[in-house]
């Protein structure tokens, strides 16, 4: 899972922004980095990401 995330651009040091959630809470919409492209992923997949303020 982490590998897939890395390949999609979730490199350590990238900025992420939570842009929204699906109406039922799952999945999530994340906006990555400078290019600002949107990814959607399940909560179970997102929990593998660690955030640093």
């Amino acid at each position: 899972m982490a590998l897939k995330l890395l390949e999609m651009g979730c490199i350590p040091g990238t900025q992420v922004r939570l842009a929204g959630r699906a109406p039922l809470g799952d999945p999530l919409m994340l906006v990555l980095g400078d290019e600002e492209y949107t990814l959607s992923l399940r909560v179970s997949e997102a929990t593998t990401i660690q955030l640093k303020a």
Partner: protein
Amino acid sequence: MQEASTAPRPTTLPPSNRPAADPHPPRLALIGNPNSGKTSLFNQLTGLNQKVGNFPGVTVDRKTGMAQLGGQRRAEIIDLPGTYSLYPKSLDEQVIADLLYNPDAADYPDFVVVTVDASNLRRSLLLFSQLADLGLPAILALNMTDLAAERGIQIDLPALERELGVPVVPMNARKGVGIAALRIVMAERLAAPPALRFWEPEGDLLPLVRQIRYYFNLHNDYLALHYAHQFRGLRFLSDDDRAYLQELTEKYSFDSTARQAEETIGRYARINELLLEVVTVTRTEQREPASNKIDKVLTHRVFGYLIFLSILFLLFQAIFAWAQYPMDLIDQGVASFNELLQRNFSGPLVRLLTEGVIAGLGGVLIFIPQIALLFAFLAVLEETGYMARVTFLMDKLMRPFGLSGKSVVPLISGLACAVPAIMGARTIESWKDRMLTIFVTPLMSCSARIPVYTVLVALVVPDESWLGIFNMRGLVLMGMYLLGLVSALVSAFALKKILKARERSYFIMEFPVYRWPRWKNVGLTIVEKVKAFIFQAGKVIVAISVLLWVLASYGPGQRQAQAEAQVQQQAAAQRWPAAETERQIASARLETSYAGTFGHVIEPVIRPLGFDWKVGIALLTSFAAREVFVGTMSTIYSVGQDADLGTVQQKLANEKDSHGQPFFTPVRALSLLVFYVFAMQCMSTLAVTYRETKSWRWPLGQLVYMTGLAYAASLLVWQVFS
């Protein structure tokens, strides 16, 4: 194997085992991220010269086409599945590895064209960097330049070319801008293997890598590294090869996951450096992109679903109602053609041709409008980017049943007809989700069941209202539909536990920016799907319908002739009008045909369900198409083929059993109704399932499961309530 003729840089070309003078046109592979406009580019380059086949042994489509290059030259293009990286995360992506790691592969390309989304350069270059390190000659198609411009992203093209070491062709594939330039670049064979390396394996991996290179005689360190990572999944390796690699990787304690992570991070670092030199972003204002604004509505907790429901409704209307007109036209066309033939020729062969083969063909052609409409819809949804949002909205609801968010559209389409619905399940990437969807979609009550439902419901449910507002017949009808839906969901749930997933199923996906659909792409998709259906599923359908026709028209020995003679005697004695005599003859002939024999033979088996041999015949013939049930029943009860449903109902209502009581009691009709809710009474569906799963196991499974379900349900109803 051609050399890059005007390349100013030194190149390290991979040695090839192929002869120097290759008789066939150059072969190139189109590769790139999903949503990078690869399909548009493929369509632009090949137009209608596309073919869909499959890769041996896998249910992945192999899309190829011929492209015109500049100056009368042509090239063969193979469109590879979209991927973010050479490390496969799905069956589709596995096919890429099989192709690109094996220079001896039949499809091995002479060079690759990599489509890159200019507005997403950083991530798109990951794949490119991997291809470069493999030493593959490449051309970079820098697509979506308009999007990049909108975002204030400026790319220094010569600098990019210099940094990457390959020709870069800017373009907007959807509008067709830059395609001509690409054709010229391809024709002049400027594709060059980049001389630059993006990333090097860590020093401690070198011994392992070198050993693999030596053993397999590979030209490239990075390729050898991929062998180490992926050998279990590579089809072209022999068992011995794999055993060797297994040994080797264990000996060196090779941790594939950790190394991949290291590599990906390393590549991004290099890409970042590169981009700093080449790209400048000028943010004009902090304006929220239109896409996000649209998304606020379309994924809204209330509006999002409402809008989705209305779109579904529209889809349903299209397949169910709009398709009727062309369908009726096709029906009439086939019937007129048959009439023409029958008027001018006669004899048993003519009957086989018209009532068997051509009728069967008509049965295939009649699906075209529905398939075309469904795929038009799907293509538009996919092209605009809305499909990703659909998956997003529906995923949580579908997950408990082992289905994907994308399963919703095939399931709903199944309410009109399972045939296009099953074909539409293509959009589901996860193999397990897709198989589950295909398997349970036929349980959704399709429109062919409606004549059956209508006749039976009207037979036994009084035309009254319940509580003053709900029409009872309507309620029972709805009940049948609900039964179908519930059984589909429950079956999916059960099957999910049984099926082992072949691959880890990821949900994570990109939300593409909204954009107008490219109608050319939509059109080409429709053509492709219709062709595939006719030539693949169509063959099976025609074969089976001819078989069924033969069974219903011919009987063992002299029995048919005898029966007919008997009817003639009766007709003379009782002075029937000609029309009545004809109907009685038809009925007698059917009774004594092979189909009739079948009905008698299975009667003991279906009697516990409340059926008799007459119903048994109809069960066999309606396998061709469910609505044939009504036709067959009317023949058996000698109602005549053109009778309306009212007449059929009356006749059935008058039918008496051996005790002089009405045969079609409410319970019997209910039993038959329930049977039809579950039964797999449609050879076209089986044919399509076979085609989509490329195996007979699945359609056979459907047949067995659904027939079993139908039998059990019917049994329950009859035994409990009578």
